[in-house]
């Protein structure tokens, strides 16, 4: 201490009027502490969290689309993509294995940062605070829910020392808990109460309340809680859409991976499997366009249609999914007539610029006279309604046995990078 004082004094004398402060701040970007200390910073972080989900959405789609029957790999694709497509040689060190895992906890960490910061922000309406918190819970739940469709085990929280992986059923349960909590956060407030939050902190085109219910419906269905799934799906306003948008300088990540990089494209076999006259094939894919350069003729690839342009939005859920969740829940609960009615409502949809519409004739109770036939039809509808939404893998796990179809791969392995750095991960 004495030495420090002596030298410090000397240097002070030497430095005369110059600024000697050793505590510098980073002028280029705020530190975490600075960012979360005020409302503007928390709003920006909330938006950053939404951006993380929007820009990494491709990682939630890639493996489910490649290990099932949605996408194929062009010849210039990375070895990692090819391994998913063929189901051979999936290496735990590949980015395709670690990306969904990594981005999930990046998003979860950001969501936690917001959730922890909001109570300390002063001068903020209760509605604004509830909106910020609920939306953070929603995005954390979405990230966990998407990841749980790709890994058998994973932690439910981000932790600097590494989280403890739990079976994925528990992860779905945690997603549902977060969503229910978000829903009750928002319950006391009218849309007017939330308007400040919505206009300042929500990404344009995104609908928080309906997405919470839609996600509740999705994850209740995955966990077999059919009544809750049905109730939640019924609450979703099917006239609304909820979008991840990519205005410049942003870029749709699926367009970027599939079209710009040219690694992956829709399989023509997917298009051929559709019912004649199904308008959804042309909505999602362009089967007439030339496949990506260098694609071998033995592998027939189409091109992306909805994601065929740089700024194309991605729907977080489509109305048809809600109808099909209702139908599946009703079928599982034994109400086949209601299930058939919902299937037909979904088949009759005309769609919008950003959501698909099959425009197919209704099916009869004779055609769908058993529960298995109803479930098989739901699986077929979901294949075309929910193309490249990252849900196909889970759909095949749940409904594949009804039609005898299995994905090529059960789950992604635990990423190598997590195995070597997380002491709570064992057996990999």
């Amino acid at each position, binding site marked *: 201490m004495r030495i*420090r004082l*002596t*030298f*410090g004094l*000397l*240097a002070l*004398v*030497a*430095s*005369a009027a*110059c*600024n*000697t402060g*050793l*505590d*510098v701040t*980073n*002028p*280029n*970007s*705020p*530190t*975490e*502490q600075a*960012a979360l200390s005020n409302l503007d*910073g928390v709003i*920006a*972080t909330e*938006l*950053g969290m939404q*951006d*993380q989900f*929007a820009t990494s959405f491709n990682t939630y789609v890639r493996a489910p689309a490649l290990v099932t029957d949605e996408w194929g790999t062009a010849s210039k694709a990375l070895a990692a993509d090819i391994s998913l497509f063929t189901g051979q040689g999936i290496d735990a060190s590949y980015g395709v294995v*670690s990306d969904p*895992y*990594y981005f999930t*906890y*990046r998003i*979860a*960490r*950001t969501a936690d*940062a917001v959730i922890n910061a909001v109570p300390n922000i002063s001068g903020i309406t209760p509605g604004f605070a509830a909106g910020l918190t609920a939306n953070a819970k929603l995005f954390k739940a979405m990230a966990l829910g998407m990841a749980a469709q790709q890994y058998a085990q994973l*932690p439910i929280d*981000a*932790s*600097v020392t*590494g*989280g403890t992986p739990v079976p994925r059923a528990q992860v779905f349960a945690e997603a549902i808990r977060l969503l229910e909590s978000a829903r009750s956060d928002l319950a006391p407030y009218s849309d007017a109460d939330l308007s400040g939050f919505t206009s300042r902190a929500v*990404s*344009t*085109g995104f609908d928080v309340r309906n997405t919470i219910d839609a996600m509740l419906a999705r994850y209740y269905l995955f966990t077999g809680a059919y009544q809750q799934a049905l109730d939640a799906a019924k609450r979703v306003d099917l006239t609304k859409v909820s979008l991840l*948008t*990519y205005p410049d300088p*942003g870029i749709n990540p699926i367009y970027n991976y599939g079209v710009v990089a040219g690694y992956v494209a829709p399989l023509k076999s997917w298009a051929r499997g559709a019912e004649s006259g199904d308008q959804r094939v042309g909505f999602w894919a362009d089967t007439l366009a030339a496949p990506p350069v260098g694609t071998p003729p033995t592998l027939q690839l189409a091109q992306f249609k909805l994601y065929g342009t740089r700024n194309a939005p991605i729907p977080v859920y489509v109305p048809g999914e809600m109808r099909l969740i209702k139908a599946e829940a009703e079928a599982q609960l034994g109400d086949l007539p209601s299930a058939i009615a919902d299937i037909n409502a979904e088949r009759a949809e005309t769609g919008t610029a950003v959501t698909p519409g099959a425009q197919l004739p209704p099916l009869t109770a004779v055609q769908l006279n058993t529960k298995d036939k109803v479930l098989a039809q739901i699986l077929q509808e979901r294949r075309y309604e929910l193309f490249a939404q990252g849900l196909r893998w889970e759909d095949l796990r749940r409904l594949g046995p009804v039609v005898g179809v299995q994905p090529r791969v059960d789950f992604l392995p635990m990423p190598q*990078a*997590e195995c*070597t*750095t*997380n002491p709570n*991960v064992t057996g990999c």
Partner: protein
Amino acid sequence: MAVSRFSPRAAALALGMAIAGGGTPLLAQQAYTIHGRVVEANSLQPLPSATVLLVGTQLGAATDNQGQFTIRGTLAPGAHQLQVTHLGHARVVRDFTLGTSLNVDVGAIAMQTNPIQLNEVVVTGTGAPTERRKVGSTITSVPGEQINNAPAAQSVDKALQGKVIGAVISQNNGQPGGGVSIRLRGTGSILGGAEPLIVVDGVIVENNSEALVSLGANAGRGGAALTNSLSDIAPGDIDHVEVVKGAAAAALYGSRANNGVIQIFTKRGTTGKPSVAFHTEFLTGNAPKEYSLNASPTAGRGDVLYGGASALGVPVTRYNYQDQIFQQSNGAINQLSVSGGSAATKYYASGQWQTQTGIVRSTDMNNFNARSSLTQTLNDKLSFTVNGSYIQRKSDFVPEGEQTQGVITTLIFTPTTYNPAYNPTTGRYPYSPILGTNPLDVIANWKAQDNTNRFIGDFSTNWTPLSSLTVNYLFGFDRDNETFYYYQPPLSTGAAFTGSVQNPTRDVTRFNNDLTLTHEYDLSRALHLTSTLGGRQTSDHSNVLSANASGLSPGQTTVGSGGATPTSGQTITDIRTLGGFLQERLGWGERLFVTGGLNYEASSAFGSDQRWQLFPRLNASWSVDQEPFFAGSFLGHALSTLRLRAAYGETGGQPPSAYSIFDNYAVASRAGKPALIPGSVAGNPELKPERQREYEAGFDAALPDNRVALEFTWYHKHSTDLVLNTPLPLSSGYSFQLQNVGSLTNKGVEIGLTSLLLNRHSFQWNSRLAYSANDSRVDKLVTPNDTLIFGYFNAVAVGQPVGEFYGAYFPRDAQGNIVYNGRYDANCNVIAGTAGIIPSAARGATCKTTLKKFLGSPDPKWTLSWNNDFNIGSHTQVSFLLDGRFGNKVANFSRRISEYFGAGASNANEQCVVSGGTTYCQETLNADRHTTYEAFVEDGSFVKLRELALRYTLDPSIAGRVGAESATISLAGRNLHTWTNYTGIDPEINLFSANTVARGVEFGTSPIPRMFSLGLNLNF
């Protein structure tokens, strides 16, 4: 101040007297004036700038241009001694007596050239100016003449090549003003910088080597600059340069001295009438060799694939347009300086103008330097000095290296059936078939210009309140503004290219405040204590601003305000340091000196808990030849000089980023709204400096006639707490954190042998042989099995040298033949298959990409340089310098690319087979060979004829006709010849410039020109 016998009371008394400002007046003192003249012993020419000290006092003077000196002081009559020192000459002690005459002429004092220069005063890292013999660590001094006379060097860094033992100085690139990388005793970091700290007259100057626009290696590779700050000082202004190579000597610079320190001392004024010096030099140069390209009269596979021929074997026209890429380089240097002064005021002022065209067309450099120095003595206790230098430099570059728009890049990427000539019908330069860009279009129409404006200045005062106490204060200031302008016209890289302008600028303001107090004290007649207490504060502020645009309208060559798509960016960095040091040097007569010191320093880049760091040092120097027993012993018969020395010191290194201690949120946007995203790099408030601990020991010895001198140094540098990216669990929400985890060791020896081989009346031959060997080993990384890859395949792995090449190797059978089409075991050994280097459709499993091995280090195992000076008669001097490196590997990626695309000379004779309807070749599009880096790692050992010079001093009568006192004409050459087995264009260049780890990769960058110069020096 002499105290007859040591006792604490006497010491206290003496100290008290010293502080009271008096000595011990034994006799009545009188005001004497002592004058004399210092000359070179052989030529009897006057020696300016020699330091004359009255022994036992603080009185002294420097000689003027005529070698004259005058010392005035109040002194006791009786016997006295003058000590005369001068860089490069042996110290002289002259006895004289002060008597009744108050005006004493001691006459001419002749100084002999000293090969060891132990009395040379060194400053860098010593706290206060000190004779070399008192310092236990090695400090290399290079006198100004060696830099001024270095032929066609154009900048200090190049002039130092081959002249500093243990320094590997490489010119990375042959473009004019091309950067140089300097490694002192190996590479001591991994993520941090490896270039030494540069100090100019006490000013710690900016030495950022980040390129503003990547013209060689791609952006994001770091340290890839084409220029460096050492070239901002005109060589003609340099008095001498000091180099300290490791922690043992550099400990005074504490937390930023891990890579050693190079201090430049500029010329000062000398008393006497104004002396005017004019130097003019004409330079011309060319590329040392051309790329050898495919000259086959018939089409090969590359020609067919890329549209140059219709079928294999048909006659083709080939184009070797290297004469349209390379040109003769011409340049000129003109410098005018004036110096002079009175006893109280001394001044030096100079201006230099330098112009040079490069060996690649459309490249050039224009420099303008101005420098002035003023020293004013206010009274016998106080003086101050103001130095200022300004440089303006404009350089024109071309893209090259791994830039797909590169001029040489396109040459090696394109089959030689491509004709790049301008097509008057289309009004365009035809696109090249693989990269698109036409190299002649780049030369004719692109612009890549760097503009530097820089001021380096300092203000210092020297106050001697007591004869035993000196107080030095220095304020140093460095303001560096660099702007880059890079214009790529629309359509120039391809039909879809909309053009681009990049116009980044970097502004750096840097200052340091140094205060040093030095106190001299005699503990007894034999024991002398020098205490130094100092403080230093530094501040660096850097602001990088970029403005870019694409989508240019025809004729638009600026970022503009509309139409084009603009982008911009800014990064501001602040680093501040604060620290102090205490040093004690105990001298026992002239025999033994022991120095101990402690630095205590803090940097804003580290967390508050780790911020303050201690850096100790200890060294000892024992002049055995001063011992009473020496003269009578066998050692005394064998040697005239023997000094043993040993040193230990610790230094630190700054972190890769100024803000690594924080969890920084990244600035982003979500659908048009400003957003923040938590960083993927976790902040580490526990981050501390990388720490180097260096031991060194050695000796200096000379034979009795002083004609042969030997220096030997052994060193061991252990660098610990190396900052590395330590991966965090994916489930942390981070990817990694910078942590102090790594360590590595450099150890080696340095041997210098200086001799006066011949000393006849009219012929003298001075020779200096410098050998150094360095062995580097990585000791610890985050995990023992980590292999970190930098650049293409420079690796960092435990047990290996930093940057050793690590890549795929050929599958070979038991006889060592390459077997491409076979079956292999897990180690790439051939199980079945016949020797062959052409893959076929039917080839078996390959092992080419996954298995890698270490393929050699880009750093030399040892270096040897041999410098020779011949004095012939009284007018002629001839000198040459051979600079050699041995055991280093170079990755010849120029050859790799040219062979893959069919442009290489060897493609003319390659074998191809047709298998399954497809043609497979030995080289062209042979992806197996292309990814087997073993094929391209070559022995890069070389010896360069670095310097060759002939200097002729005209007879004074001839010089007098133009009014000059003396005139010298010189004819010289630099890098005239290279002896090497390396097959590429130049084994010295590196794509990655001054990058810490990525080294030794030759890939499409300009070779170092062979330069000739004709110069004239006039002194008025």
